[in-house]
């Protein structure tokens, strides 16, 4: 039986249908990310779990109990906000102790728990400071400690790293994941950053226009996207227009070059299909399927080199590791690109 279950959740804002028949079952201790562009309904869904928004229809069950009619302060949920939301009038220790004191915990026990939490987030000596005396990363750590201190059943994080700079974001996401694993707390994490979702989550829910387009583990979401939206939103994707030559044999023509995909196609011979291949699935040199093109641009991204190659009138991105042996082709040079047809999505 799932620990957190969202069943047929629906929400409108006036005429705007923001969440459509959303269903999800989350196991105890699982880390699930809601990933999608702005306005896709991920934060609204999270806020309905927290109790800050009321669904039009549907139910939310936590540990077997329907919480839809419960107020936010009755749900035993910890929440971390994008804007930290630390109480400015309280010290770090008072912030962390807030939920404990509300729950009626004795001062001595509360002090002990606060010390534990501050040690856990690596700020054991900053209890007496006020939020404005902390950096953004430290404030978000304190917000995490505050949310976790009352030992909530579920932890909700609403784009908690968006306001931080890149370096801190990377270190903090590792810390959040480590703390979540250590405590084994069921967690929902909202983000529009695919790298965050892919690196932290047990499962990802990719949302678009209020609908969960695909639910799966990061590897499946990235390598086997269920829809074109998932494929384009998660990672970079090359789109190629092709004409079917032989549907049964899976042979297509791209800009006058024949490619055999080795699997039957649904489109009839002479019809058009779209092929999608990730930049890292392409390699310089012949492969199981090959295309010839002209190098238009070479750009360095540290460990990766990205080539932009023109195949007829269509443009492809190709990523290759920047090893010491690698010599990038010159702009204007004609190259052969190879790929495994199994890595190409046909739509």
């Amino acid at each position, binding site marked *: 039986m799932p620990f957190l279950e969202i069943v047929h959740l629906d929400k409108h804002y006036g005429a705007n249908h923001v969440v459509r028949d959303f269903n999800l079952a989350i196991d105890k201790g699982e880390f699930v990310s809601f990933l999608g562009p702005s306005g896709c309904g991920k934060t609204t869904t999270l806020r309905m779990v927290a109790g800050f928004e009321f669904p039009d229809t549907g139910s939310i069950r936590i540990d077997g109990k329907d919480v839809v009619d419960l107020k936010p302060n009755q749900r035993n949920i910890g929440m971390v906000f994008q804007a930290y939301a630390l109480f400015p009038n309280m010290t770090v220790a008072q912030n962390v102790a807030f939920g404990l004191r509300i729950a009626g915990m004795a001062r001595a026990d509360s002090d002990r728990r606060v010390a534990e939490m501050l040690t856990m987030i690596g700020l054991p000596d900053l209890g007496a400071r*006020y939020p404005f005396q902390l950096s953004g990363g430290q404030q978000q750590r304190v917000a995490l400690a505050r949310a976790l201190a009352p030992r909530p059943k579920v932890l909700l994080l609403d784009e908690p790293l968006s306001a931080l700079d890149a370096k801190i974001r990377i270190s903090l996401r590792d810390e959040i994941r480590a703390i979540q694993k250590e405590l084994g707390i069921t967690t929902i994490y909202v983000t529009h950053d695919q790298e965050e979702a892919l690196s932290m989550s047990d499962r990802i829910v990719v949302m678009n226009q209020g609908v969960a387009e695909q639910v799966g583990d990061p590897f499946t979401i990235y390598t086997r996207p269920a829809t074109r939206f998932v494929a384009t939103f998660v990672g970079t994707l090359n789109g190629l227009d092709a004409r079917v030559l032989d549907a049964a044999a899976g042979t297509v023509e791209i800009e006058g070059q024949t490619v055999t995909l080795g699997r039957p196609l649904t489109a009839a011979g002479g019809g058009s299909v779209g092929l999608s291949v990730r930049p890292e699935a392409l390699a310089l040199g012949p492969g199981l399927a090959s295309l010839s093109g002209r190098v238009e641009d070479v750009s360095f991204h540290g460990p990766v080199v990205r080539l932009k190659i023109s195949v007829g009138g269509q443009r492809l991105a190709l990523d290759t590791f920047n090893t010491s042996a690698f010599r990038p082709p010159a702009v204007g040079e004609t190259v052969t690109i190879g790929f495994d047809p199994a890595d190409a999505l046909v739509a």
Partner: protein
Amino acid sequence: MRLQHFWAWLSLAIGMVYFFLPLIATFEFSLRMRRGVYSFDAYRVVLADPNFQATFGYSVAMALLTIVMGVVLVVPTAYWVRLKLPRWRPVIEFITLLPLVIPAIVIVFGYIRLYNTSSMLPLTGTATGTNFLLLVGYTVLALPYMYRAVDTGLRAIDIATLTEAAQSLGAGWTTILVRVILPNVLVAVLSGAFLTFAIVIGEFTMAALLNRPAFGPYLQVLGANRAYEPAALAVIAFGITWACMGLIQLVTRLQKHTSARR
């Protein structure tokens, strides 16, 4: 450039003379009670007057009660309007500004007519009832200042997120208001409180027409019958107002977590 400076300094000097000359003259006059020498006799007489002590004490008590009533009325209202009814803000602001355009005499006549001894709620029939009526009147008079101060304070903090953070930690509405919202708008509340104090201490119309022993009517009676004491009282009242303004500045500077709002 220098000519511009000259005009700026000149207008400042004219302004200062305009404001300070009457004050200096009043102060100077208040020191002339003893013939031929300056003395604080007028102040000594005023401060020793049992009526001064009684009326001043009454007005201070009323001012403190007005502040409490104002805070209890305004903080939850302004908070709720900002949090849940943002579309109603212009309406509420308009209502809170009404005491500035409706003269106190109109308000107090309305009270007397509505709450006289032959009405359903005969508040003017007893001293306690009339005191309560005066308290309500003072709260109305101070409403524009208190509401504006608190609303400005609330604008400076993200009340929606702070409220949600507190709710997610198990806090109810009272806890949120008392432990999260109020401490974070304390400077604004104190600004409103000092303004309220200054208004109530010198208020005449309502107290006189409701026949309450307040400091304003005492000032008027003394002014009509004595020469030097009213000048001394005016200086004292002015000093109280300035002290209130100074306290607003002091509290703003002493607030520990002010920088968190920026």
